[in-house]
């Protein structure tokens, strides 16, 4: 339902944060928000540590790029949860507590695996929390400088004097790309 939400954003006037709350240049160009002196707003230090470990397990560092820990996803999560409603805050508090309890009985890796067991059709609170935790990790990591530039190596958001069109030779197009002018009607 991700894209459905995107369509709706057009009409989400009421949810858009007010500009005057942050100003238009909340941080210097090119510098990540979540400043180095960021103070936790919702998580306790212990909770933040747990979120940091869990998000790194969901999107870990690999030879290609750093992971969620380096991208400071737990601090992004803290800001997002801190500015969410009571129900969401309660779910995080309870979910982290439960994850910690599961980890005490086995290990954090096993607790996370248990929570992810029925992804897409969660039946328990722990499984529902996994969906929330993973979604937050995705949002935080792929909007970070590390996620965008180092992992995905995104090439856009730039000024071009002309759009080049399709310049790739791709397998199914090798026998000739149809002309934009050909049509059926």
């Amino acid at each position, binding site marked *: *339902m*991700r*894209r459905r939400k995107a*369509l*709706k954003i*057009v*009409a*989400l*006037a*009421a*949810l*858009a*944060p*007010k500009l005057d709350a*942050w100003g238009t240049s*909340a941080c210097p*160009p*090119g*510098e990540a*928000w*979540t400043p180095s002196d960021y103070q936790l707003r919702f998580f306790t230090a212990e909770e933040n540590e747990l979120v940091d470990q869990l998000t790194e*397990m*969901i999107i870990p560092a*690999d030879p*290609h790029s750093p*992971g969620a820990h380096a991208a400071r996803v737990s601090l992004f999560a803290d*800001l*997002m949860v801190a*500015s969410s409603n009571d129900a969401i805050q309660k779910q995080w508090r309870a979910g982290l507590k439960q994850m910690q309890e599961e980890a005490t009985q086995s290990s954090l890796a096993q607790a996370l695996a248990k929570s*992810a067991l029925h*992804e897409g059709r969660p039946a328990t609170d722990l499984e529902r929390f996994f969906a929330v935790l*993973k979604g937050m990790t*995705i949002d*935080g990591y*792929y*909007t970070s400088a590390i996620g*965008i530039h180092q992992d*995905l190596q*995104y*090439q*856009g*958001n*730039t*000024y*071009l*004097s*002309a*759009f080049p*069109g*399709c310049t*790739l030779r*791709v397998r*199914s*197009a090798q026998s000739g790309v*149809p002309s*934009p002018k*050909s*049509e*059926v*009607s």
Partner: protein
Amino acid sequence: MSDPRQEFDVCVIGSGAAGGVMAKELCEGGAKVIMLEAGPKVDPSQFLSHKWPYELPYRGLRGEKQAPFHQVSTAIRYENSDQIGVSEVRVVGGRTLHWNAVALRYAARDFRQWSVDGIEEDWPLTYEELAPYYERIEQLIGVCGSDDHLEILPAGKHYLPPIPWRCSEHILHRAAVKMGIPVINVRKAILTVPYDNRPPCHYCGHCMDGCDVSAVFTTPDCLLPKAEITGNFTLRPNTIARELLVDREGLVRAVSVVDRLTKKEEEVKAKLFAVCCATTESARLLLNSQSPQYPSGLANSNGVVGRYLHGHLNDGMDAYLKDFAGVKPFNQDGATDHVYVPRYNHLAGKKDYAGGWGFQVNYASYMFPNQAWRIKGYGAAYKAYVRRVQPGYLMLGTFGKVVARPENRITTDPGHLDEYGTPVPVVHFRFGENDFALWRDSIRSLSEIGANLNAEVFLDFGQAPTGFASHEVGTVRMGKNPKTSVLNGFCQSRDVKNLFVTDGSCFTTSSEKNPTLTIMALSLRAADYIKQQRRRGEL
């Protein structure tokens, strides 16, 4: 600030696509025009278009990148409504500041829903009557694209060069052609060459977050300067219209306004009023304008104002073309849509429902990997997979017809006032039988297209349609029948002859096409009519 004693020839309320055209045309015709806009001016330097997500506190989520357009909220409420949203943008330029600029003409059959399909009503004007106005608007705003010789999507004579296609769009075209489905150059009010003293697009992919160079048509960049140069134009931002006031003859004499910043109240007087506040707010303004002559609201003697709210139903799919898996990432941003899939369901004969749908293609950002939300699992393999499929992203968004029905409506609630003391608008909307039938056929067809692509496909269907993607229309409709419409074919109120409503609320019915070009053509036609009537001394 205008002199409160001054009377203008025309007061245009709202500065979006409809109001912009109306003000420019009437100023050029010699009328003294005042334009009221509830919101502030937004300078392009305030746009967040090119900001990286990590430069913003919420990373551009929660609609953050469009925050400059949503500084002034209206306390809208939804009651017993399906999953839809109406747009409220209170800013000089209205929705033209963040529209996707798709500029499509309605087809002849789109004005003749009753004659063609036996539902709804025919419009009080034909395509042939509106065609010259479409042509003038296209040349005024600059539209790229091509004439594809399609009956369902009539073309203009003067398009700017089309935008080159992405690889994924060539592949979509190849798959669609085999299914008898056309894929054509998109027609958008985005400049591909310099035009009207504006530079061309720089293909950053952020058209809907505000275009800092005016390559996308907007009212404040393209129309208001033309109005200003006449010396006949006064713009008043941050001025909220609350109620239209009438004289003894029942004509509108003034609009009661409140200054958004100082909360000061006053009346703005004019000989003629053009209401261009868009579908929700125009209906709200008329319904809130109650007087002894018009106890149920202005122009509402038949009780139709606010009714027939409709718009587009939306769905879509994300696909990841396997040919691109693992390809070195490359810049695909472009100008959001480069191609369009016009309506095609009518080509296969009569359906058991009326209307059709079109697909807009690749208007989502290439920066965020939407598949990350769809792919199961976590860990290193998950991360590598998200990365691997990303270059093959292709998305199709469905925009389908919704039937105009009187029970779907905007009302206002006198017991619930906004911070300016005005009753808030309340939306009541349910999809109907025809909408569901059309929606089911559209998702069947979209699934077939997905199956014909060599791709991993994520369909985006819920249990019911959603809408309106900012395309709501119909609450102050024009029509042939005085019992089921408010306006005549020139957007003029039947009850109050110095009142015109030329935004999307004037639509009799809606097609699958994006409404803005038609809104502008109708507003231009109404402006021509006003000029003619003024010359004859009838207004």
